[in-house]
């Protein structure tokens, strides 16, 4: 077992992990942050996407020990402390960007990473950025609409 320390959603955390403990497992089982979902064994579905030092990564395809010293943000860190949803979360609700919701945490994390890199993405750019996020329910159209709407809402704020 090794000791790991990192910052998760702004809070310093640490724990004892095995070499093989995945970041997703550490978040879910040690920190009880179960919003990070695990939908596959093959690094393909993106339900587990979190941000590590500002970059979208698949938490199922990174060891917890590799996040030593990192700043991690999970879906639980996206809404404001008082529960006010982020523009992306609100837009998913308004545009029916989810049905069962299993893929949604990863979708929202990928969407925030996209908008941080590219505040004004085209529809094609949104679709391309979601290549690693699989949704079995929605058919994607409403997810794309939601992200475009969130981008439009967030843009003036980003320009300030």
């Amino acid at each position, binding site marked *: 077992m090794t000791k790991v320390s990192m910052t998760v959603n702004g809070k310093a955390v640490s724990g004892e992990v095995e070499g093989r403990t995945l970041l997703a497992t550490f978040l879910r089982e040690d920190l009880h942050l179960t919003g990070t979902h695990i939908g596959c064994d093959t690094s393909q579905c993106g339900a587990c996407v979190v941000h590590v030092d500002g970059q979208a990564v698949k938490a199922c395809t990174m060891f917890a*020990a590799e996040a030593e010293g990192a700043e991690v943000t999970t879906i639980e860190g996206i809404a404001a402390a008082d529960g006010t949803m982020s523009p992306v979360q609100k837009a998913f609700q308004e545009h029916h960007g989810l049905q069962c919701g299993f893929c949604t945490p990863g979708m929202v994390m990928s969407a925030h990473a996209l908008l941080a890199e590219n505040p004004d993405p085209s529809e094609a750019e949104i679709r391309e950025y979601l290549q690693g996020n699989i949704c079995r329910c929605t058919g994607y159209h409403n997810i794309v609409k939601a992200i475009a709407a969130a981008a439009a809402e967030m843009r003036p704020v980003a320009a300030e």
Partner: protein
Amino acid sequence: MYDFQFARPTSLDEAVKALSAEDAQALGGGQTLIPTLKQRLAAPEVLVSLTGIRELRFVRRDGDTLRVGGTATHGMVAREAAAEFPGLAGMAVRIGDPAVRNRGTIGGSLANNDPSACYPAAVLAANATVVTNSREIAADEFFDGMFTTALDEGEIITEVRFPIPERANYQKFEQPASHFALVGVMVAKHADGVRVGVTGASEDGVFRWTEAEDALSGNYAPEAVDGLTVSADGMIGDLHGTPEYRAHLVKVLTKRAVAAS
């Protein structure tokens, strides 16, 4: 996944030492190795993460050469090579998806030498040199059939040096489920001739299509390969495409790459 000891050295010397242990294996971005470990297709005793070694993570131009550190991620290459070597950046930006590109590394991709991976085609076409902790290996000597390379046990890719071509382009016909190349072709026009690297197609892994190289070196235009045929012998056949289909794609993608370069 079986458990292992995890090491995260901060210098190349420490990493080389850690990898000399019995059943030790390097970990790059983990985008191939971690799924492999989950399936218990690999079971190292010690996993030596290379991502803590700062000196291996860079992309920079040095005269006519683009130097890419062994743990530079696909995302870094997509961004940082865009101005200097757009053909390479355009290849990197189409590997997998954004999250895979934020972790996956050039060293891992080359060491793995998946028959459908994108980087091997670029390294062959660009005539790059693979630099390790102990030697320099020319692209033509590096790849040795599917999932096999000239690397010795415990040898670490520290850098890849790409002579920057006059023009280059990578065309990928994507297998939509895996995002890997069903067939991918990189064409690079150098001052002394054209090189064509083909991935995804052959049962022997990445290869150079030398007939097309000769034709394109004489006349750098898509039509130059019109009279050539690619044999389906030895091409991969699976549920995604027959050997004939792949052979056909090699020619189509070569023409597209020339046109787009």
